[in-house]
């Protein structure tokens, strides 16, 4: 029967056979629950932000009008139910870009006419690749990177990813040499490079890019005349220094240059606001042709008007956004600190990080040998014996074995403490 399906249906470019997803499956079969299944697997493989939802819930209790599809007491249900314009709800786009600016300390401002709404960042990234590349073209991505990119950027688009290798020797920073090497590798394979895609703050590293790195990227794309996509989905999770620099700040000095049209930002409310279920993603770009094409492509995954309306109300409340951004930061910092000190106690160090919902943990010293097989062995022990679902570095295409991504913002504090205890017990043996 599979003979009658498309090539895409038959291949496994969706990447779901990777350990990242296998770990999630193992968790599904035996999920930890404080009362009902205290011996279950603790989920530390899902980068969710569960720390600040209570702030949204309180806002709701004070803004009941929004809840009932009402605006100024009048029902707007009909208008919302009918609203399917792919340009998006103007009030929502306005509130969204203001929120994005606020996250960046209002050092930059965004134009609502340059934003395209999509069904989550998953869709935003795929749409951008459809706009920039044809089947066989390549995107360069620094390793380690989010495993989902293999599906989002390659599966249905037919594009390729060539890694820009980053190593622990310089804390996984992007170097000019690594960029050139990746470009050369693509050329050697006869692959046309269409752009570079970076995630800043980084998933899985949890670090923010330095100004120097951003300048380096700009120089590189100017030289090669290619695009730069910056996935800034974690921009609202920066909890420590150094301060966050968005590519949009760097871009401001290139306003008259040709490269102005070739830098694109991806955003979403799944991480900062902790609303992954609502499927709110966005593409922001100065490139008019991409705005036009991506807007039409967004027909395949528009944001529910019900959701756009709710969020337009929430994000227009500046008191709420100000409080949320600062409170969320504090809670993430505290939670991050708990994990780091807990791991330190167990003799495990992490990459120094200031953002994200996870830590990049160094378990190289726990490997039986410096190989990916040993990493898999260790991973299986941690998932099935220690009962923690963490993500092995190989699933993130890390070039060095022994690193693991451990999420800390998707559970109660007590659960994190239990997880840390389990790790200590495992290491002490």
């Amino acid at each position: 029967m599979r003979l009658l399906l498309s090539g895409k249906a038959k291949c496994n470019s969706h990447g779901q056979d990777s350990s990242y997803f296998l770990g999630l499956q193992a968790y599904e079969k035996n999920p930890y629950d404080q009362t009902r299944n205290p011996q279950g697997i603790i989920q530390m493989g899902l980068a969710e932000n569960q720390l600040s939802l209570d702030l949204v819930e309180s806002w709701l209790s004070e803004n009941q009008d929004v809840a009932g599809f009402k605006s100024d007491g009048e029902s707007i249900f009909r208008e919302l139910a009918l609203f399917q314009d792919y340009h998006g709800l103007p009030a929502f786009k306005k509130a969204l870009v203001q929120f994005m600016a606020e996250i960046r300390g209002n050092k930059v401002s965004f134009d609502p006419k340059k934003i395209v709404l999509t069904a989550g960042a998953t869709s935003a990234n795929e749409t951008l690749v459809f706009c920039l590349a044809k089947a066989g073209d390549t995107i360069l991505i620094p390793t380690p990177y989010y495993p989902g990119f293999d599906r989002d950027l390659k599966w249905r688009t037919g594009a390729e990813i060539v890694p820009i290798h980053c190593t622990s020797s310089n804390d996984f920073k992007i170097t000019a040499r690594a960029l050139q090497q990746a470009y050369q590798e693509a050329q050697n394979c006869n692959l046309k490079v269409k752009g570079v895609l970076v995630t800043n703050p980084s998933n899985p590293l949890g670090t923010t890019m330095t100004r120097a790195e951003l300048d380096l990227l700009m120089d590189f794309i100017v030289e090669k005349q290619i695009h730069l996509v910056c996935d800034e989905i974690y921009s609202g999770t920066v909890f420590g220094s150094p301060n966050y620099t968005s590519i949009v700040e760097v871009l401001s000095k290139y306003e008259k240059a040709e490269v102005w049209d070739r830098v694109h930002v991806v955003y979403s409310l799944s991480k900062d606001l902790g609303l992954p279920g609502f499927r709110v993603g966005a593409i922001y770009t100065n490139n008019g042709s991409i705005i036009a094409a991506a807007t039409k492509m967004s027909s395949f995954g528009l944001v529910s008007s019900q959701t756009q309306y709710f969020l337009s109300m929430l994000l227009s409340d500046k008191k709420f956004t100000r409080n949320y951004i600062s409170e969320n930061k504090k809670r993430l910092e505290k939670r991050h600190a708990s994990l780091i000190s807990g791991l330190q106690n167990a003799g495990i160090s992490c990459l120094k990080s200031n953002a994200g919902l996870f830590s990049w943990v160094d378990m190289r010293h726990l490997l039986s040998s410096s190989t990916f097989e040993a990493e898999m062995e260790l991973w299986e022990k941690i998932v099935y014996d220690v009962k923690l679902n963490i993500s092995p570095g190989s699933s993130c295409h890390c070039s060095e074995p022994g690193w693991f991504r451990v999420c800390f913002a998707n559970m109660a504090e007590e659960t994190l403490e239990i997880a840390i205890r389990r790790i200590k017990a495992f290491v002490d043996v």
Partner: protein
Amino acid sequence: MHRVFFPDFPWKTLQNNLHNGPRPGPYFKRITQLPLSLLSTTISCSFPANSSFVFVHLSCYFISYQVKNPTSLFSLKTMSYVSSNRKPLLSRKATNDGHAENCPYFDGWKAYDKDPFHPTQNPSGVIQMGLAEHQLCFDLVQEWLVSNPEASICTKEGVDKFRDIALFQDYHGLPAFRNAVAKFMGRVRGDKVEFDPDRIVMSGGATGAHEMITFCLADPGDAFLVPTPYYAGFDRDLCWRTEARLLPVVCHSSNNFKVTRKALEEAYAKAVEANISVKGLLLTNPSNPLGTILDRDTLREAMSFINEKNIHLICDEIYAATVFRQPDFISIAEIIEEDQEYNRNLVHIIYSLSKDMGFPGFRVGIVYSYNDAVVECGRKMSSFGLVSSQTQYLIASMLSDDQFIGKFLLESAGRLATRHNDFTDGLRQVGIKCLNGNAGLFLWMDLRGLLMESTVEAETALWRVIINDVKLNVSPGSSFHCSEPGWFRVCIANMNEETTKVALARIREFVLRNGNKPNRKEKCWQSDLRLRLSFRRIDDVLRSPCIMSPHSPIPQSPLVRTRT
């Protein structure tokens, strides 16, 4: 309408051809004044099945120009996109016409945008009859919402669910949502069939569902047969990013546009001859734009056809609950059960709540497949267009309310029937016939008698008059790839009763004014007819505030600066 793309086309040659072609005149002169460097040298042309004319599009200047005998002017080659001096930095998909929005039928939207009807503020404005929306039952839904505040996770009654729902991004979808949708689909089909919630895959509206099923079933270049006339959005949904193609199965008014086995076989044979791999057949039942349902024989023939050829059958049943009169709707789900020999792995149903419930804004699209591998693959692909969990929760609650749904379906059918009768009666009184339909949110109106000649050109000319003089934005049959000129789709469920009366009065007045003159050439609206040349710079397109729905068959209307 076939889309054929031409290679980089020398400007001088175009000038010469237009100059020497059948319609010289002021238009080409204006073209020649534009500096060559401003133009992309990509030219695409499109011409309908009967090839009586071609529209020439220059990719950054939009020129509608009718030229007869196109094959003598151009030779067919594959398209390439090259900008004047720069490296091509965007993909072809981003810059070609695959989104199908650059066809010339934007005058209707332009007219509506500039002059929208309002009963008190603008009673002589253009009435929107090009949007297939179901606006007749919102009062029922609103009433339900008020009585069921817990269905929204934002109310104080529902907020305790907020966190779990906000975090829920599992591509299997909320179990309650799938269960409710499966039950609703069964209800809509009179509970003659049952649907398995585990076969329900979410998508970003039916638009997303069509693209997704195509990605699952077809490789670039593969084709789907689709009976004409068909919803113009399919060109984008099934072909744009998937690079699949659509091949028409031509249907005729002589037998009420029935889909015959003969027509299916002919279309298939043509494909085989042209070395095109056919992957499936796409049926819309109830039909858009016809407003009719497929009878049991046709459905059985379709099943036997696809089984014989071992190709897929995609049934878009998005209008299933808009059937307002006998005969009863028959879903492919029923036909499948009739014969154990049918290969169920070939059958897939596309569904949505946009038409039956009137919720296009909520983007609830469904792919229901009898093929396990398609369900599995589709689920993974649904990551690109999941339904917002907030909406899933609301819909789950609403569709599980048996009493409400029973009342809604009955009322909806009743109101659609009344609206349908109001229009068909009113039209009949002035001698305008419609195809005999019992479903959908529109009428398939027969205006062949008002055409000067039986050509698409004449249909377009009549359409422009209906927009600009009668002030109704209706959709011409050619935009649905209809093989016979003179048919128009008229949407009737997207307005209130007063507007209905105004629309009917205008049609009546127009018909009576023109009457049935023995000599067609004397029709008074034809005296001033000429082609209009519209220029539109690409940056105008990009900056124009398009506010209309992208999901109607007529594309968004940017502001067009006509120069006549």
